[in-house]
């Protein structure tokens, strides 16, 4: 039995294909100038092509994410169901590692702490209206500093004299960062200061939902090793490895479409 899981985020669309609960194909693409539905169509065709499966063989599609309503699934003539991001994340995490009970998801426009068990979301806490601490903020910062944050995501060894970014607001933090550059601070140290600021935004959410023994971090920002290292340091725990960190929500949506976790 084949099920499809779609996670339409604010910045990228992620599509996964599950056959008998095994991940057989996955595709992601950024929403740049194309509409969400165009990007989703591209990803859907790519995963079907990759697994050599016809759309008609897909039993059901599970969809989640902040842009889910813009995908336009009506035109595909496959039954579909919409799920909450937290439910999808919990189901996806259970599929990847059932022992993980605290998940930190850092996406382009939002971040969330989740406590889960047996594939069910028990408690969540998230940013609501503010860009501070999100992937978008980090991208803006990397532009200003002229550092490709993904290529330069290993910053271990940079210690001492890390500037504090006092502003909470992402807009004001930009100004503060520019002032630090004018004051001839090392851009890598400034970036560490930014990571520390982001960490301090996420930390209380994790404490609020509860820090369990096994913790994992998901979402696009989880691929940033320096950021993750700093989070580990602050939380005093080593995160469990997650093989496809940006696809966890999409996998979860597919699992839920298949009837949920066993």
């Amino acid at each position: 039995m084949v099920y499809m899981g779609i996670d339409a985020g604010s910045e990228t669309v992620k599509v996964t294909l599950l056959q008998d609960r095994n991940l057989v194909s996955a595709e992601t693409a950024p929403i740049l100038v194309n509409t969400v539905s165009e990007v989703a169509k591209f990803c859907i065709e790519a995963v079907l092509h990759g697994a050599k499966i016809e759309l008609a063989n897909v039993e059901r599609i599970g969809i989640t994410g902040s842009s889910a309503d813009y995908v336009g699934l009506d035109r595909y003539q496959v039954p579909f169901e919409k799920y909450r991001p937290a439910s999808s994340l919990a189901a996806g995490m259970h599929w990847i590692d059932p022992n993980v009970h605290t998940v930190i998801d850092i996406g382009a426009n939002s971040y969330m702490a989740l406590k889960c068990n047996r594939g069910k979301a028990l408690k969540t806490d998230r940013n609501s209206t503010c860009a501070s601490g999100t992937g978008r903020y980090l991208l803006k910062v990397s532009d200003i500093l002229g550092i490709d944050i993904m290529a330069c995501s290993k910053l271990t060894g940079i210690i001492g004299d890390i500037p504090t970014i006092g502003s909470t607001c992402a807009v004001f933090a930009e100004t503060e960062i520019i002032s630090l550059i004018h004051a001839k601070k090392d851009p890598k140290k400034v970036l560490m200061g930014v990571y520390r600021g982001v960490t301090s935004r996420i930390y209380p959410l994790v404490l609020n939902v509860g820090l369990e023994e096994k913790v994992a971090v998901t979402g696009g920002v989880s691929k940033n090793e320096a950021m993750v290292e700093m989070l580990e340091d602050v939380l005093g725990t080593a995160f469990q490895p997650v093989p496809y960190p940006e696809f966890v929500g999409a996998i979860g949506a597919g699992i839920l479409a298949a009837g949920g976790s066993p």
Partner: protein
Amino acid sequence: MIVSGIDIGSRSSKCVIIGQDGTQAKILASHVLLTTPDSEETARSVLNLTLQKIGIALTDLRYIVSTGYGRVNVSIANKTITEISCHAKGVAWYYPNVKTILDIGGQDCKVIACNDGKVTNFIMNDKCAAGTGRYLERIAALLQVSLENIGSLSLEGMYTPEVIQSYCAVFAEQDVVSLLWQGKRHCDILAGACDAVVKRISPMITRIGMKNDFSISGGVAKNIGIIKRLEKEWGANAYISPDPQIIGAIGAAFFSLEHAR
């Protein structure tokens, strides 16, 4: 007696020189500059440029009060006073009847309750760019509309605004980009942005209380779209001084007069 007030704001720096002859005080010169990362240097330049306008020397100034976010970095000042007190003082010189002042600057927004030029209560937001001049500045930049024009353009879209859903200035920019893709009119998008600023400030006004005679100062008070919307929202007339952006510096200069005596 000639004195000066310097207001080093987060976005722009203002200097005012006033002269007093007997009991009659009048503004002799003023100047506005963008604030650079070096606020000490900015203070010196804005003061020099103002002095040059009327051809007097620094030594002719009896007293200098500095105010604003960068006030502590102005070493030539004799005294520093908060911008909240200075705005109350400056507005009182023009409109002694005003009891509520909205100071909407580049990076913060304050609602000040005052009586006779003295602050009785205030509230401020300096943590979040939503509802500040910066928010409008960024949206204007996206639309490639100059700051001076956004107010009047936003009035053209007064009754057909495109609602900007996001609260955060960063997310609002994305909303604006997608509205542009949809081919929405600039004036309607700006109307939505001005509505958003008013919506952000209004709860602060509710907390401090609105007295009928109110004034708006700070750079955003030059935006007719914001003025009209605030007047409509609160059913009151706004008293706007000839140059609302320099009100803080004017207030600082009047404090200089008091201290120089």
